[in-house]
């Protein structure tokens, strides 16, 4: 393991990786403070630019930007009462009242310290868990890899959204869209309609930009963000430092909330918006005066912010080790892996442990420098947050066009981005899971290849291997989770309270 850590340090400490991480952090923070543009949009906008980079540098750039989006989002959540991204919504509950009571600087200090330390704890959990997973994944064969990939789509589709059917339809559509172009096994072009562009199939960058960035830009252009916010009060350094000190004085809360974040991050498809609310509820439940929550208590800021950043470490565990994204953002990050010629999953951990630990170091580095940037640049970033959305929309539109073209220097990619944007807008409006579609898309070649290998090697009986049976059980559990949840809730309601069953 010491060898791996020294190799990872070598990868991480190269100038290219460090400065790309810093740029990624800056971009992530700016996108974080812009309400409505979350980590997914940040990844979608940055994905085209990693094409052709060294794997470590490209992944560091993406991960650094994605990891700190929520740190930036805390600023607007506390000062303006507008969450920069969905997971920051839990921070508004106590952060905004603190700001209105004149304790905004303190709340910001607490949020920044909790975010930084939460991210650090997430990294420690990641590094601690990876060595235990490595020997396990060495025993995973093609049938299990196939089922892991299927499980990833089902979990992201079924558990991540309010409606399981919508998530599964999106995942299935993503798989089907990936089947256009040359088949990897037979070398025959599928569904290309005599159109040369489709020989390479639907391309990942136009798909991601169209699904995530176009709907957000349209939302901004249509005035979907409240424009009546004001710049907020001036923020001094002394209250920020005081808030940071208050956070350090609550190590148990910080640790508990971070561990909640790590655990929820590990569960495929559940992460994202859930972790900060669970951490907040847990902090409130364990508080001496739960009624004070919502009125502006500092614990109500520390709990969601630490879990927010810690969950990325947890989400990376399953992403790297099994190829199953722990959060929606990780679905797009898997696309980044593929663009850089890497395939996350059992083989990745076996062959690229140094890269995995290097990414953990990037995660910690990004979280810590994000805190320093936020302390120094909060007043400036607040001005960015106050830009009129109608002004922001065309600027982001230009970035989309440049990003779509820069991927393969093909103008048709720009057109494809806007065409897929129509699908993205429809899915966003109707509540269909876009991360599930992207995950289906990036996993489809893997699923098809390993299904083929499994059938060739074992026939249909590959499903009867012990590992495969276990995974099938987990898939069935994922598919029936809604019903199981209702059953347990009903049982709890019937037998809860004083222990008497309701008739």
């Amino acid at each position, binding site marked *: 393991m010491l060898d791996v850590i020294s190799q990872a340090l070598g990868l991480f400490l190269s100038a290219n990786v460090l400065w790309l991480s810093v740029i990624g952090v800056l971009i992530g923070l700016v996108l974080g403070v812009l309400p409505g543009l979350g980590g997914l949009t940040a990844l979608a906008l940055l994905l085209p630019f990693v094409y052709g980079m060294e794997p470590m540098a490209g992944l560091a750039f993406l991960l650094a930007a994605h990891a700190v989006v929520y740190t930036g989002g805390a600023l607007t959540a506390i000062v303006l009462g507008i969450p920069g991204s969905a997971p920051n919504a839990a921070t508004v509950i106590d952060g905004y009242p603190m700001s209105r009571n004149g304790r905004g600087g303190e709340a910001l200090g607490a949020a920044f310290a909790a975010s930084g330390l939460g991210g650090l704890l997430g990294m420690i959990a990641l590094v601690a868990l990876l060595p235990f997973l490595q020997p396990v994944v060495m025993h995973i064969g093609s049938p299990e890899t196939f089922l892991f990939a299927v499980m990833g789509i089902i979990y992201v589709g079924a558990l991540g*959204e*309010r*409606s399981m*059917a*919508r998530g*599964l*339809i999106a995942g*299935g*559509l993503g*798989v*089907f869209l990936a*089947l256009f172009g040359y*088949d990897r096994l*037979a070398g*025959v072009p*599928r*569904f290309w309609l005599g159109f040369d562009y489709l020989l390479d199939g639907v391309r990942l960058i136009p798909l991601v930009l169209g699904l995530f960035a176009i709907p957000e*830009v*349209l*939302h901004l*252009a*249509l*005035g*979907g*963000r*409240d*424009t009546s916010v004001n710049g907020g009060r001036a923020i001094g350094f002394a209250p920020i430092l005081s808030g940071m000190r208050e956070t350090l004085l609550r190590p148990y809360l910080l640790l508990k909330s971070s561990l909640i974040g790590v655990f929820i991050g590990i569960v495929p498809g559940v992460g994202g918006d859930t972790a900060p609310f669970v951490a907040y509820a847990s902090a409130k439940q364990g508080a001496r005066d739960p009624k004070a929550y919502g009125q502006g208590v500092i614990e109500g800021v520390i709990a969601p912010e630490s879990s927010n950043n810690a969950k990325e470490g947890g989400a990376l565990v399953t992403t790297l080790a099994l190829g199953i994204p722990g959060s929606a953002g990780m679905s797009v990050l898997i696309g980044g892996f593929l663009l850089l010629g890497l395939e996350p999953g059992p083989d990745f951990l076996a062959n690229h442990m140094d890269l995995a630990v290097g990414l953990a170091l990037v995660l910690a580095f990004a979280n810590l420098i994000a805190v320093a940037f936020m302390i120094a640049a909060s007043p400036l970033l607040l001005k960015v947050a106050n830009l*009129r959305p*109608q*002004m922001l*929309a*065309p*600027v982001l*539109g*230009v970035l989309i*066009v*440049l990003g779509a*073209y*820069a991927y393969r*220097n093909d*103008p048709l990619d*720009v*057109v494809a981005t*806007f065409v897929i944007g129509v699908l993205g807008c*429809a*899915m*966003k*409006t*109707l*509540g*269909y899971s876009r991360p599930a579609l992207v995950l289906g898309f990036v996993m*489809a070649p893997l*699923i*098809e290849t390993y*299904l083929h290998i499994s059938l060739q090697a074992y026939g249909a009986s590959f499903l009867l291997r012990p590992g495969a049976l276990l995974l099938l059980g987990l898939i069935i559990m994922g598919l029936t989770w809604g019903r199981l949840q209702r059953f347990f809730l009903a049982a709890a309601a019937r037998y809860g309270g004083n222990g008497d069953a309701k008739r």
Partner: protein
Amino acid sequence: MRSGEIAFLGAVAAFLVGFCALGLFHYDYSLSLMRFPLLAAGFTLLVVAVQLVTLSRSACEVPQGNQRATVLPRGSRFTQVAGLLSVLPLVFLCGFPAGLALYLFGYLKVAGESWTVSLAVAVASLLLSYGLFIQVIGVPLPIWPAWWPA
């Protein structure tokens, strides 16, 4: 919203069935080549059918997606969407650097920004596309219009 979702599901079903039929009957793909597409399409169509049944049973559907925008400071929703999409014809008609700058300038002016801000953003876009992308990074963005003789 409910009729919109039914139309969306119909489009998804037509897309899947259409391409599978094309593969089987028009391109005559072998069954081994079509095995996985049929599996993926079959599973998705099954869930589409379940969702359609669920929708037909539910009396009123609560929108699951993000709420639509309600604030429109100037112009109609159609104008805003058309304005946003005007980037496509502009980059093909004027070349990428000039088209993007023109797009930003025009969009911001129509959105009510001042001449100074609109011009400044347009110049910044030129610096980004021509200066950074073409000169520094070396991305061969088309400088000339698509209709310009090569």
